[in-house]
């Protein structure tokens, strides 16, 4: 009885784990049943005794082999980093909405580890023959993951690509590429800038947000942000209503 109900619980086996930049890692988890994941969706991993599962955007998905990128930031990611090939992981998901893919000339913005869901999105756009440009910003060359197909790179120290923060190049990028839609994931300030520019140039923006979560499924109301719906400011949960929001609907703090 219970097994047919457990459609979002997986005992996944670590198929690969490797360091991909000086501070980030790639882990591939083989789920017991192949599972379909849309770009922008996330999975939540139980991290060895910690109360809160840690949510991760899906970076790759090949027949139920879910790949994620992560940085070691605290106890949760420290646990995941310690896993070895063959270890069993308690994973639930996929959760959340997803990027609402439009057949329009697209600009993709990723910053830091935020490139993970954007790279997955690019895969889907390419598959559908949608014209896109993927621009990504990092601190330095050693922070650029190899497995990603990026068109334009920016680094704070100029060690690869153009020098400076991607934030300072966003407006120029928009003018150059003249996109009809922008998708973005990265630090709050990058997303806010993308949203502001979207409004200025009257371009639709979709941003993938991040927030500490407890339940991952919209129950606890712990991860809410303010959004504008029908002219009113209301709560939206990042885990269920998001993580992808229209940039012009988010009330930026």
């Amino acid at each position, binding site marked *: 009885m219970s097994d047919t*109900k457990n459609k979002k619980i997986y005992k996944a086996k670590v198929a690969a784990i490797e360091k991909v930049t000086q501070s980030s890692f790639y882990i591939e988890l083989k789920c017991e049943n192949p599972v379909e994941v849309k770009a922008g969706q996330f999975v939540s991993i139980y991290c060895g005794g910690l*109360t*809160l599962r840690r949510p991760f955007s899906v970076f790759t998905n090949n027949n139920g082999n879910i790949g994620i990128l992560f940085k070691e930031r605290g106890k949760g990611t420290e646990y995941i980093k310690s896993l070895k090939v063959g270890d069993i992981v308690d994973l639930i998901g996929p959760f959340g909405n997803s990027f609402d893919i439009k057949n329009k000339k697209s600009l993709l913005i990723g910053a830091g580890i935020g490139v993970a869901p954007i790279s997955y999105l690019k895969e889907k756009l390419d598959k559908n023959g949608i014209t896109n440009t993927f621009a990504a910003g990092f601190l330095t060359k050693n922070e650029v993951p190899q497995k990603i197909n990026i068109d334009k790179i920016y680094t704070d120290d100029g060690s690869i690509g153009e020098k400076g923060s991607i934030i300072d190049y966003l407006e120029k990028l928009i003018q150059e590429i003249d996109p009809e839609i922008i998708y973005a994931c990265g630090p709050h300030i990058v997303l806010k800038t993308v949203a502001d520019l979207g409004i200025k140039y009257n371009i639709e923006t979709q941003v993938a947000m991040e927030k500490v979560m407890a*339940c991952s*499924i*919209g129950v*606890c*109301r712990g991860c809410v942000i303010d959004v504008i719906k029908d002219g009113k400011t209301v709560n939206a949960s990042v885990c269920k209503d998001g993580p992808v929001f229209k940039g012009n609907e988010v009330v930026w703090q």
Partner: protein
Amino acid sequence: MAITSVNFKGFNIKNPIMTASGTYGYNDEYDDFIDVSSLGAIVTKAISLKPREGNKHNRITETKAGMINSIGLENVGIEKFLTDKLPVLKKKNIEFVINIAGSTIEEYIELAKKCETNKIKAIELNVSCPNVKAGCLEFGTDENSLYELVSQVRKEFTGFLIVKLTPNVTSIEKLGLVAQNAGADAVSAINTLKGVSIKFNYFNGRFNKTIVQGGYSGSGIKPVAISAVYRLSKVIDIPIIGIGGIETLEDVLEFFAAGADAVQVGTANFTHPEIAGKLVRELEEYIIKNGFKDLEELKKKLRK
């Protein structure tokens, strides 16, 4: 009758595993993980007279052995609950308790009346939420206010009336007695403990801080909860529903041993969304495996 059933006054549930308010929504979200109708009952997220937006952001943080939340009773309000959520619970045959929260006695009375009109079988009075400015916890910490509130609600509501007690008092026994004397059919204990977490990192010459002040829950509070149930069981005669840090069958049995008649699983639902269903199965297996006649016999032996 199932071997695990619990016979509360006018509110019989098929097993003693319930889910705590605020951790199970109104059930829908858990369909992907378990058959919710297999649980004894779910307690709904706290419902107020009018919808509530809840507190501003940074509402949760992890602690050692648990978490702190400051949601602030965000909920859809009683009217929307009755029109949108109630029919779903009934259709799915899920037993439930409505957790009600108000800022004034009048609000609680109004809520109780609506529950009575809609033939709700059981309500849990939330007099112990630490995260809202008015009402709630004030009623739960003052003996006179609590007596007044419970007796007024009792007049309006004929179903099973549970009072959820706070641990943030000197003597939970006194408040439990007050609830009993005012006409409560049961108490549930405990709500969250008051907690604060300050997380910081040093960057560019200054500390960036994230402060979350609210209710502490999770496995760390279990000894406090067991103590509350244990002490309450010495002084009150009405049933006690134990809450606090339950994650395993051993935890459930420990609550029974301390004097609980049923339990509510809370924070663990976030960590393991299938946990409540798993505990139902494990409890039944435990009773059968050890040759107990039923749950009642198991409880009796645990308390000897």
